[in-house]
């Protein structure tokens, strides 16, 4: 095969399967960041969605603004496998000369490489076992457009058009998407559709379209939506009644606030005055950001902030203050790969311990673990209730994958009958009735005391809120008994907390399965697929998805049930140090040997392949140990 041949006509070297591969494959786009590829790639994913086929997308981008390699991985799966699969991709769109060598290597045998053939490939770039689809995209753009920015931008649209032909996508639907996307900027619609058609026609003219890998319309999406978690979180905060935000930009949490702000601009303007029913301050750093939330929480408004990595560390002192003074507020932690600056644009679940025990001294924080945009919305709204009811910070543990990637999710749900739960806040009337008011009096014996807000009552209920030891009446004390009493009450409050927190999601077979898988957040995405593969290996699996810390009793039960002799519990997490396992062991007093860890911490969302291999490996190891031991 010569380069010339590759440029014009496809020559099928190898096939993935003898049959057609329909609706079950991965397309990976390799681009340079800052060239506008993400929106074209997203258009591709959304077109699949509108064809009724389950789809998910991972944007793998650098910590840099322009000119570095970036990838966008679209998984199409009518089996509803929405996590990453692992392994090589069926189709790679290789638009970045920097990374093309690696990209060529990551095409699956029998798969396709769509590349810009304006420049010939090197001999070393030719693999005999894959198929090359060369389109002279740069040359086409050079001919079609004069503006350099357009020459750049439309490259991306052209390959989407070509893919439409190759994969037999609904072209009308794609055009509809362009119209939706540029609503309000009508001038852009025609040139975009034109670019789509350039690609579409080129592919149809030069290749046998569609390929043996292709899509077919289905009705498998039902009312699900494709959205990123940060958008849903921002919206959840609007619905949850948050009015005040202090924040400081940091990837990957920034868009939580940006989305909150843009929804507020639409949904939170006072109809009478046209004024804002919210206040967002971009402050000087993360210490100030959480300070704002705490000040507002003290004063009775629902407030939150969002941050990542280094921001969490910087908020540590204030988290301790809020825990000890019992001030409600919500912190959204969109985790990224640590330690330190780490890999700011890679995902991880590695702040579990840093958040659970945030701050010096004996502190414990409430954590919530959403796993989908739908749940981000729900849990964020709920977090404000929980914080108010428990009078303590609530940390929502999202991550870059959940926050910034588009996930196929149940739609967002709000019951209009639902009422904000503001917890134990005394009104002026209630204060009048109360005989003695003590801010830290455990009246209900649940560890949660009654609080008052500034300005409520002319004479009663005022107290001096402080991070120092205090007695029941918020008076400063260094008396050991007072101190211990207060600390033990806080422990009691933490037990009470469990009743307010979302319970774990458990799937359990009739007869307890051989394997118990425990996971949380985005680690749940590849689970369905992993379970199916484990079944192929004759292994049955029960699962438990943790949704909150402190832990519900049934987590302990699940572990007990699944750690009998011929069973095994695995804890899947995306960090090096098995942080969730540590938390389970500590807080539930569980023998750590009952829990085997599956740890994926390379910064990319964990794959089903990784999970299955790790589980099989550990089970095999156990077999060996049994035999030899």
């Amino acid at each position, binding site marked *: 095969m010569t380069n010339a041949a590759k440029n014009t006509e496809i020559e099928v070297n190898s096939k993935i399967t003898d049959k057609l591969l329909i609706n079950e494959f991965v397309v990976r786009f390799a681009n340079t960041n800052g060239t506008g590829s993400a929106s074209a790639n997203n258009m591709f994913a959304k077109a699949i969605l509108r064809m009724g086929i389950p789809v998910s997308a991972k944007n793998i981008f650098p910590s840099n603004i322009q000119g570095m390699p970036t990838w966008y991985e679209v998984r199409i799966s009518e089996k509803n496998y929405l996590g990453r699969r692992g392994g090589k991709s069926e189709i790679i769109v290789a638009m970045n000369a920097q990374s093309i060598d690696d990209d060529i290597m990551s095409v699956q045998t029998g798969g396709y490489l769509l590349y810009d053939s304006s420049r010939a490939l090197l001999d070393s770039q030719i693999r005999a076992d894959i198929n090359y689809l060369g389109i002279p995209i740069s040359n086409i753009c050079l001919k079609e457009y004069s503006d350099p920015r357009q020459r750049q931008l439309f490259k991306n649209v052209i390959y989407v058009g070509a893919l439409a032909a190759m994969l037999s996508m609904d072209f009308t639907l794609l055009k509809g998407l362009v119209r939706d996307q540029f609503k309000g900027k009508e001038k852009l619609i025609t040139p975009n559709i034109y670019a789509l058609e350039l690609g579409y026609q080129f592919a149809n003219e030069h290749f046998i379209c569609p390929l043996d890998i292709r899509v077919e319309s289905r009705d498998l999406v039902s009312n699900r*939506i494709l959205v990123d978690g940060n958008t849903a979180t921002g919206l959840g905060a609007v619905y949850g009644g948050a*009015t005040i935000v202090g924040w400081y930009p940091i990837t990957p949490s920034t868009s939580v606030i940006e989305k909150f702000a843009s929804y507020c601009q639409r949904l939170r303007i006072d109809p009478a005055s046209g004024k804002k029913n919210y*206040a967002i301050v971009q402050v000087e*750093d993360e210490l*100030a950001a959480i300070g*704002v939330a705490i*000040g*507002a929480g003290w*004063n009775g408004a629902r407030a939150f902030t969002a941050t990542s990595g280094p921001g969490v560390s910087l908020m540590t002192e204030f988290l301790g203050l809020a825990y000890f003074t019992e001030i409600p507020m919500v912190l959204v932690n969109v985790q990224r790969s640590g330690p330190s600056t780490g890999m700011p644009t890679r995902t991880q679940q590695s702040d579990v311990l840093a958040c659970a025990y945030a701050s010096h001294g004996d502190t414990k924080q409430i954590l919530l673990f959403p796993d989908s945009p739908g749940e981000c919305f729900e849990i964020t709204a709920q977090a404000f209730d929980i914080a108010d009811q428990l009078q303590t910070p609530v940390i929502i543990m999202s991550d870059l994958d959940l926050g910034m990637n588009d996930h196929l999710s149940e739609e967002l749900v*709000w019951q209009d009958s639902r009422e904000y739960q503001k917890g134990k806040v005394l009104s002026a009337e209630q204060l009048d009735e109360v005989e003695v008011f003590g801010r830290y009096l455990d009246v209900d014996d649940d560890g949660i005391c009654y609080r008052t807000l500034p300005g409520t009552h002319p004479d009663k209920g005022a107290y001096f809120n402080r991070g120092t030891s205090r007695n029941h009446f918020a008076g400063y004390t260094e008396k050991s008994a007072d101190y211990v009493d207060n600390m033990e009450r806080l422990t009691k409050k933490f037990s009470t907390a469990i009743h307010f927190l979302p319970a774990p999601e458990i799937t359990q077979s009739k007869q307890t399965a051989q394997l118990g898988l425990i996971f949380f957040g985005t680690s749940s995405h590849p689970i369905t697929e992993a379970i199916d593969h484990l079944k192929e290996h004759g292994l049955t699996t029960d699962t438990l998805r943790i949704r909150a810390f402190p832990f519900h009793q049934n987590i302990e039960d699940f572990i007990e049930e699944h750690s009998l002799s011929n069973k095994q519990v695995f804890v899947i997490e995306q960090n090096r140090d098995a942080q969730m396992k540590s938390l389970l062991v500590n807080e539930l007093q569980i023998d750590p040997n009952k829990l085997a860890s599956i740890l994926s911490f390379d910064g990319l969302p964990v794959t089903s392949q990784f999970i299955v291999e790790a589980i099989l490996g550990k089970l095999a190891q156990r077999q060996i140990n049994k035999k030899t031991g």
Partner: protein
Amino acid sequence: MSFIKSTFRHPRLPVNDLGLTYRDYEGALSTLCAGCGHDSITSAIIQACHELSIQPSEVAKLSGIGCSSKAPNYFLNKAHGFNSVHGRMPSVATGANLANQDLLYLAMSGDGDSASIGFGQFAHVVRRQLNMVYMVANNGVYGLTKGQLAATADKGVKNKAGDLSLFTDIDLCVMALQLGASFVARSFSGDKQQLVPLLKAAMSHKGFAFIDIVSPCVTFNNHSGSTRSYDYVHDHITTAAVTDFVPVKKEITSSCDSGESEDVCLHDGSIMRIKKLQTDYDCSNASQAIVDIEKHKKAGDILTGLFYLEPTASDFHEINDTNDMPLNKLTQDSLCPGSRVLTGINDSFR
């Protein structure tokens, strides 16, 4: 400090417009050292609030950490207070104020709290033009940790332990002026006659009001050689203008000698009457104020009084265009867009 507080009340203590006596503005018993300047600030605040007939419960007291930051516990018992963490009061004040713009925010900080650990927060809350009274009890040392030099200590002075202040000192008034504060003053805890009207004006001012109050630490910085001792301050204090504060309701009766006296009308209609003692005094010129402050400092003097006032300044909420109804009073009706709106939003994700 005495640890048993007399509960005796004089039957004929003067009452203000709310029918409250001075006692109604007091707080817990001070645990500061006997003679600490901060206690005098406390009593000036009590007097100012009483004279202004401020409803104590309509005040929110804020502070960081330090002897000075304990002070809010010693005034206005009926007001909620928030003793936050060291140097971070400004952010807490921001959140509190954003939540409820109807309260009066009285904040107390120290020079360690605001010029060292909290300098970043200080600078940014000034920029933000938060409607608050920000007082720094400036004693040139860290009282609570036993006398280390603060960043406001004059270069070249020694603390009680004999450590020399080696670096350029930070003048928080100059910084506040530079960063856009709309009310900037300096006073002395030992000079109630000057301090009380300044406090009253600051409380009546809408926008960010900063008062640096020289407040001697009798235990760690009252030795000879200190420039924050009672003796030194008494000997070196100068004032650019004497201010008097006339609340909105009172009629102005005293005559006004145009050249030497000026009336500035504050946003709530109250009047700040300024009697110039120095000819070049001009409280509407921030740059000039900085020059004046530094000129006096070079001469070894401490210039006090009102430095700058922008009576029509905006505060954060005006700039932000926040609803007049305090955000913490909004109910679910106005906060939650409801399920119908959500249907449309869900559609945008398909």
